[in-house]
């Protein structure tokens, strides 16, 4: 997507251009509106929401709902707020991201620089695992986690996310290393470097961008996961997404919309932050995961 490749050829008339700008602006309203509403209403007292207009700015600005969502709201049976679940997610995401990225980097290195018979088939098997509907593994996964004694624990979820994250992280590193000159590896071999020395001294120092892409992708995916969290870690071990859903769906008492909105934003915050800080890499990850790179 280099700027020089931008097409310089298309000429558009004034009316067409106006139409294009209007269309693009309306579209941006469509994308911004839901989040805007969440944000605005999370800053209102409940009475203003039920009685008033959701588009209106708060008459009384308050961060009470945020405090409630974070530490006092009823999630499931306990009035703990989302805080413990936020930490659950962190404790799950960090190791899962690290492990799956390390494995992906090693796999990508082997699959491009130490090729052997049938390596493409093995990669195909790993790649396909990215796309399976996870319903197909839910039942046996529940049994295995039970047998290992880690069902309902963060450790169990880490295992699950590592396993189903390997495909994507391998894909990223394989595509990246495929473009890495093999002659460098050969030169290092002649220089006497072994498998791990080449990886550490030659490959890793040049892998910065793809590590960022992979970490962001895995982080977003694992943080946002709901299916595995809901299946294997309900109760106090649940991750943020599951807790948010419990908060929002709880049928007891008055629906505290402002708390729900604050909770939703809290759940979205880490990934949004990553997106804002490293959007470039986020997009690159999306593309590599789809158009293969």
């Amino acid at each position: 997507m280099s700027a020089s490749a931008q097409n310089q050829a298309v000429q558009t008339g004034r009316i067409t251009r106006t139409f294009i700008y209007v269309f693009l602006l309306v579209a941006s309203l469509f994308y911004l509106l839901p989040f805007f509403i969440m944000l605005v209403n999370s800053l209102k007292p409940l009475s203003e929401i039920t009685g008033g207009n959701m588009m209106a700015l708060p008459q009384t600005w308050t961060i009470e709902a945020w405090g409630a969502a974070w530490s006092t709201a009823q999630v499931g049976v306990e009035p703990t707020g989302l805080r413990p679940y936020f930490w659950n997610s962190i404790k799950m995401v960090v190791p899962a991201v690290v492990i799956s990225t390390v494995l992906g980097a090693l796999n990508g290195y082997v699959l491009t620089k130490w090729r052997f018979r049938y390596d493409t088939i093995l990669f195909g098997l790993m790649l396909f695992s990215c796309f399976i509907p996870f319903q197909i593994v839910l039942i046996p996964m529940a049994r295995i986690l039970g047998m290992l004694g880690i069902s309902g624990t963060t450790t169990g979820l880490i295992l699950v996310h590592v396993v189903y994250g390997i495909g994507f992280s391998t894909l990223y590193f394989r595509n990246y290393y495929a473009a890495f000159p093999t002659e460098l590896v050969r030169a290092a071999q002649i220089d006497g470097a072994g498998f791990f020395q080449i990886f550490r001294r030659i490959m890793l120092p040049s892998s910065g961008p793809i590590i960022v892409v992979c970490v962001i992708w895995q982080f977003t995916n694992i943080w946002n996961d709901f299916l595995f969290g809901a299946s294997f870690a309900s109760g106090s071990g649940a991750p943020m997404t599951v807790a948010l859903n419990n908060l929002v769906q709880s049928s007891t008492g008055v629906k505290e919309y402002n708390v729900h909105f604050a909770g939703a934003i809290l759940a979205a915050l880490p990934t949004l932050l990553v997106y804002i800080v490293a959007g470039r890499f986020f997009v690159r990850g999306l593309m590599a995961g789809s158009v293969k790179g």
Partner: protein
Amino acid sequence: MAQASDVDFKTKLQHWIPKVVLSPSLFLVLLFVYGFILFTVYLSFTDSRILPSYGWVGFENYSKLWRLSHWTTSLTNLGIYAFLYITICTGLGLGLAIFLDQKIRGEGILRPIYLYPMALSFIVTGTAWKWFLDPGIGLEHTMHLWGWESFKFDWIKNRDYAIYTVVIAAVWQTSGFVMAMFLAGLRGIDSEIMKAAQIDGASNWNLYRRIVIPLLRPAFLSAFVILSHLAIKSYDLVIALTGGGPGRATELPATFMYSYTFTRNQMGIGASSAVIMLMTIAAIMIPYLYAELKEKK
């Protein structure tokens, strides 16, 4: 000459280390993906209810499954949902990409705005849209307050229209991503081809219809594959947005599988529905991946 055994060791090591390094991942994938698939396929032929059981019942679960109106409803819903989701996302994504490619001022601001929903969890998206579409508090209510008393938008509570609200929320989440894919495709087109077409006298409309869009074929294919597999896997969004309701109006195979397996204790039927989901995705993904990997060699 003296060190012959030494040197052989290094070469041998070099031969084995890569395979040893790959093997843990391979083991995990073979067991947790392919082993589990086989296990679930096996379960789909058994009389498993609340727990796995190993009484062989042949295709009974499958025939039961296809007789369940719950399942056929969820398949119909998936059909409607997937068709609209893929079509609208592709159309909207392509439109936005083409418009953004006209040297638009503020592209750097607009692009991230279109794309940010992709960073959100479907649960967050569902929560946001749930209240926005709720007639009692959301859009309809707001319009009434603004004086448009006759405005009616209660799709989310309406059995006949609820599935379209899932489409709206899903399109909101993913269309920016499709836009990014098409934009990358557009930027990859050789500008000399465009200039040549203009010298040949092609209007903008013909330029895009006859030259540019056909050149975007690979992007269309990728978009289709990605969107269709996302559609089949859609689960979180429905749970957060409608919970499958009202009634069964927004049940999809993914929610069907979950409820039959874990809340209705019909594991055999749940497993058979998962197998059908897998086969559908495999029918789309395997030819695609095969072509991709073959090309690369």
